[in-house]
């Protein structure tokens, strides 16, 4: 069957002028809703024109044309929200890197069982005394503090064999003094060793803002200090003369670099664990005490909040 154009389809059921008209019964059964009202005697052309006029004048199905979807309020609002959000994110992402206060936590905590006495750690009756002279900005001191000291604490301090004492030898610049002062102020709240560990965990460079007041204060919060009390101590500057004096004492003892370590008054040739452990055992043996290393403290046992 051939395809028929829609406007011509109706013709097949309409009565042509030359065709016999349909019977009234048949017409009644099939209402001619789509047939134009044209006189049966009109020519084909006239009927076509009438049909065109009718179709041209026929109102559209909906009175108002639908706007395209992209013009809908929802689409416009969505687009606006996305553009503003992305623009804001891009602008914020491009801001110059301000001094970040992102802090790194110390790898290990100060063991709970270690006896504290200000800037000393260990029993007062320990036969071996280890004195370390350090500058907080010194990278080698950082290595000693992060890698060697925890082992000394777990192997000898907890066994009662060793007592550690920290001494300031601040000579690398103003931030060395700032960090040392901040640590002493933490010591007034019994948190010197935790605070010192936080300092060494976050040291980088010298006098580059790594130990700015903001960062030192942030570390105070991380170490669980009373911020107001710490701030009063730090800003008051009461600890700075003590740092200067202690540094001068270090000079007098022959300290000229950091870390410098003395074991029972004997200068250690190296801050490595092996050298220090040997010196500690020898000193303990000389003092007649057992210097066998004990198992390290269980992970997580610390006084750090």
């Amino acid at each position, binding site marked *: 069957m051939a395809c028929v154009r829609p406007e011509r389809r109706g013709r097949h059921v309409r009565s042509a002028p030359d065709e016999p008209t349909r019977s009234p019964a048949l017409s009644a059964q099939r209402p001619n809703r789509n047939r134009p009202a044209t006189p049966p005697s009109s020519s084909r052309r006239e009927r076509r024109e009438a049909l065109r006029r009718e179709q041209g004048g026929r109102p559209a199905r909906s009175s108002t044309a639908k706007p395209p979807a992209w013009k809908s309020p929802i689409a416009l609002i*969505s687009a606006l*929200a996305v553009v503003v959000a992305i623009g804001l994110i891009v602008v914020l992402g491009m801001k110059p890197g*301000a001094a*970040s*206060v*992102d802090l790194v936590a110390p790898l290990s905590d100060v063991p709970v069982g270690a006896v504290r006495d200000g800037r000393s750690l260990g029993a007062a009756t320990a036969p071996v005394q280890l004195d370390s002279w350090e500058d907080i900005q010194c990278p080698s001191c950082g290595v000693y503090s992060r890698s060697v000291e925890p082992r000394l604490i777990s192997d000898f301090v907890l066994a009662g064999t060793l007592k550690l004492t920290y001494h300031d030898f601040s000579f690398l610049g103003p931030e060395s003094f700032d960090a040392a002062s901040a640590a002493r102020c933490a010591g007034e709240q019994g948190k010197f060793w935790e605070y010192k560990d936080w300092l060494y965990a976050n040291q980088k460079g010298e006098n580059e803002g790594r130990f700015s007041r903001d960062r030192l204060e942030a570390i105070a919060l*991380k170490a669980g200090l009373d911020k107001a009390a710490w701030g009063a101590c730090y800003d008051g500057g009461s600890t700075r003369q003590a740092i200067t004096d202690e540094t001068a004492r270090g000079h007098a003892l022959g300290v000229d670099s950091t870390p410098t370590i003395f074991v029972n008054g004997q200068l250690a040739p190296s801050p490595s664990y092996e050298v220090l452990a040997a010196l500690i055992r020898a000193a303990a043996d000389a003092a007649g005490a057992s210097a066998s290393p004990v198992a390290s403290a269980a992970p997580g046992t610390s006084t750090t909040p």
Partner: protein
Amino acid sequence: MTARRGGLLAAVLGGAGLAISAYLTSVKLAGELPVCGPLKGCEDVALSSYSEILGIPVAVFGAGFSALVLVLALAWWRAGDRRALLATYGLGLFGILFVAYLTYLELFVIHAVCVWCVGYAVTVVAGWIVAAWAVRASGTSGASGASGDTAR
């Protein structure tokens, strides 16, 4: 639930977001750290440089955002104002993108998760979902939302 009553739910979510951000704002301005409980991530996030924008705590912007969502959602719920509904929808979409960015910073830059921030993000996302559903429901029903509840 009808589309207009969704406004009540969105308002509740906005209120929850406002409470969270108000707490974080007060803590930040006091120079303290938010309570983290066993999770320490919120401290790291609070102390990071990303906790402020132009020197203003991010929580302040969050509080303003949530307050605005709360007001618009209430307007939509009580008055059936479709403009308020559309504004809630638009703000929610903006909010989702921004909290997604902040969450990215937490996970991949700061490497910490702040439970308060996660809670706030949940209120933003949930609020937008409610608004989007209400927009769709009120739009397909043909009602503007002002003439009454739209049966679901």
